[in-house]
């Protein structure tokens, strides 16, 4: 009985109940839509229709089934998003390092980091596509820009958050600049760095999909707009909506998972012994 209570009270259960609840509400509306609309599939299909279509072996386009189609377009879009994400992460981290090392670099770059947050970069996607002229590189460029500044600002915040005493400790050991970074700054700022990654990972994916919709090709976004235009069944659209939502959420949790692997101390910190 107490075990049951504990399971019921656990966080996972609460989240699970919510997921089921959201799906139930979806279904209620899907039934209403099915009863009242002429083409319910355009407005809100049933959850099972989406799931079924994903696993169905009927070809949706050419020879590909739904799962194959989505897998290939996912691969195309996500690989570009991932490359852009990596480039943005490296550049963002390097800038944070430089800003922390040099007051001049910080003074120059900081206002621009502020401003770039206020500018709707995603809205500039079409022009970046026009400048690069190539869908692959523009996907990477936008994903990189969107990754770059959250990583940079959060990592810098991490460097700045190192306590005064830790600096004094390093000073009293006569540590070199390199040692300070290896022993104190970099490990200390890892949780902050990951906060940046958690913000930017879903953004990089969104950016990559958005660029897809601007031009033909094989990406998720291209399939999405083709399906909307009636080029293939509407269920392709719905499947992509659901899949991209799941990928966006997973990318966030993936960053959290990597963080836990890198800093196990945080996880073990739960069990306090007196």
């Amino acid at each position, binding site marked *: 009985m107490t075990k049951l209570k504990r399971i019921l009270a656990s966080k996972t259960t609460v989240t699970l109940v*919510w997921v089921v609840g959201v799906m139930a509400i979806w279904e209620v509306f899907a039934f209403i839509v099915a009863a009242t609309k002429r083409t319910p599939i355009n407005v809100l299909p049933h959850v099972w229709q989406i799931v079924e279509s994903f696993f169905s072996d009927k070809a949706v386009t050419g020879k590909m089934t739904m799962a194959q189609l989505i897998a290939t377009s996912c691969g195309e879009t996500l690989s570009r998003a991932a490359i852009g994400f990596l480039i943005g992460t490296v550049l963002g981290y390097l800038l944070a390092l430089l800003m922390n090392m040099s007051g001049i670099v910080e003074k120059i770059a900081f206002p621009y980091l502020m401003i770039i947050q206020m500018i709707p970069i*995603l*809205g500039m996607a079409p022009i970046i596509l026009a400048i690069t002229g190539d869908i692959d590189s523009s996907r990477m460029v936008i994903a990189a820009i969107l990754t770059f500044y959250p990583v940079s600002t959060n990592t810098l915040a991490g460097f700045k958050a190192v306590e005064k005493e830790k600096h004094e400790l390093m000073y009293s050991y006569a540590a070199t600049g390199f040692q300070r970074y290896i022993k104190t700054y970099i490990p200390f700022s890892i949780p902050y760095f990951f906060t940046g990654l958690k913000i930017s990972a879903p953004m990089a994916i969104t950016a990559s999909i958005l660029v897809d919709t601007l031009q033909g090709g094989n990406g998720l976004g291209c399939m999405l707009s083709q399906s909307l235009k009636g080029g293939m069944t509407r269920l392709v659209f719905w499947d992509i909506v659901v899949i991209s939502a799941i990928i966006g959420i997973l990318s966030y949790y993936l960053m959290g998972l990597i963080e836990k692997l890198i800093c196990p101390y945080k996880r073990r910190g739960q069990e306090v012994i007196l």
Partner: protein
Amino acid sequence: MTNKARLNLLASVLLPLCVAVLLFILWQTEVLHILLGTDTITLPLPTRIGEIIGQNADAIWEHTQISLRVALGGLVMGSVLGYGIALIATIFPKWGAGGLSIVSAFNAIPIVALAPVINNWTRDISTEVDQRSTVAKMLVVMIFCTASMSINAFRGLTELKPFSEDLMKTYAAKRGTVFLKLRLPNSIPYIFTALKVSVPSSIIGALVSEYFAEDTVGVGRQIRENIVKGQYPTAWAYIAVACIIGIALYAILMLVEHLVMKRRKG
């Protein structure tokens, strides 16, 4: 010491300004074009963009108003909804916290996937294209802005100063009083934290949802349409306007925050 502080301040204004001027010169002298491997057609000179903005001021202002209405309308709706969710979560903490994680999961949904869905749903709201399109766009912005407000407001409503809740209990204060005297004022700084995230996202949401909207209006849509038509200078004019909107709204937010927080400190 004071001289040093003044010099420091001067440097932090002058240094970025110098870079801005340098960038402008590189752009105007077309060195930037060589660096980016592009031409003056795709990336027009700043003076040319300025010219275009001057020539099309009326049309640009009209589209700006449309985008602003969508962004601010959605922002207000999303923030109110987000705060409401945070309130409910505060009243029912156990289930509410789980609900919040669902709401924050919505944040990870690509906006590109969201916009067409909402377009489908709002088809029957009105026979007028501009009306139903505006509603659809606002809803996208709303969903885009809800999560940051609900998460931050929840923190503001629950992360109280130590012992302040106990103090209220010793006064035998009712739940409503605790809310009004303690939780609500405590959440105000957190509201600004949320807005600092959601104000920029409201503009992004407005621009991107315009791409998918039925109605071909708004700053975002104009960027896209003009590029499709090959009118790059006009597209750049709208991009410049989008940047100005973003910076202006953020500046206003900072000003309001400054005023509100100053009054709180007395």
